[in-house]
């Protein structure tokens, strides 16, 4: 399938989904998994991707109330990947350096979400502004031998 995407259809999927409650998290991560599987990601990577997506969407619910996610395929040169843009208009993150540290939490969590997700994904960018909101953009690339 990936080869066809590469040759025929540069933007194979691009879907925007609201993140309003914990039910949405379950649906979004299974959708993320399905898209990843369609692109050719192996089961292990699908699970990593779904787990990362779950963490970032959960942060939206827990720390910002609500938001949205865009799930899309990306093709840059010969590279194929899956990207997630997770956006909210919540309070933003006061101390980003600390928030990215393993074990740091302002809530009841274990403080693994951001640091762990950053480790799991190939690209991870976090933009945040207090009082404005937070946007996480993250990508996982297919290994070349997979397509």
């Amino acid at each position, binding site marked *: 399938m990936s080869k066809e995407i590469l040759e025929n259809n540069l933007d194979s999927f691009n879907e925007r989904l609201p993140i309003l409650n*914990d039910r949405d998290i379950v649906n979004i991560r299974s959708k993320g998994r399905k898209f990843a599987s369609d692109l050719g990601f192996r089961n292990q990577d699908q*699970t990593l991707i779904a787990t990362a997506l779950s963490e970032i969407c959960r942060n939206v619910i827990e720390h910002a109330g609500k938001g949205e996610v865009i799930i899309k395929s990306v093709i840059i040169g010969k590279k194929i990947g899956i990207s997630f843009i997770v956006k909210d208009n919540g309070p933003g993150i006061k101390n980003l350096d600390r928030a990215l540290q393993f074990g740091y939490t302002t809530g009841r969590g274990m403080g693994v*979400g951001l640091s762990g997700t950053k480790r799991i994904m190939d690209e991870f960018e976090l933009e945040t502004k207090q009082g404005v909101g937070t946007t996480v953009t993250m990508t996982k690339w297919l290994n070349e031998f997979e397509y």
Partner: protein
Amino acid sequence: MRVPILKQGSYLIASVQSSLSDEELIQLSDDLIDKVSDVRSKGVIIDVTVLDVMDSFATRVLRDIAQMIKLKGAPTVVVGIQPEVALAMVSLGLTLGSLKTALDLEEGLSLLKNPLSEDND
């Protein structure tokens, strides 16, 4: 959907049937804690074979359930964590703490029945 909890001998077995929302996980926690006192259970097994993701929330709830059930005098074993799920948990930096795990139901039950021979923590 509510997770069914079956009684087998003096053990309780909760088999997760589909991916769980947070609410359903909390419900499972409440149900198990109620039931464990009701039936004076000697141990609890939570079967998570069907779960394809265990994120920080699910892990925390499972750890909390085990902790609360321990206070009621019974051990908890989580069975059926898929290898790729376990690997994703490790990659994320999640640990199960003192939560006991086993491959499947059978191994879980024997772990509960012979805690001394296999329980080394």
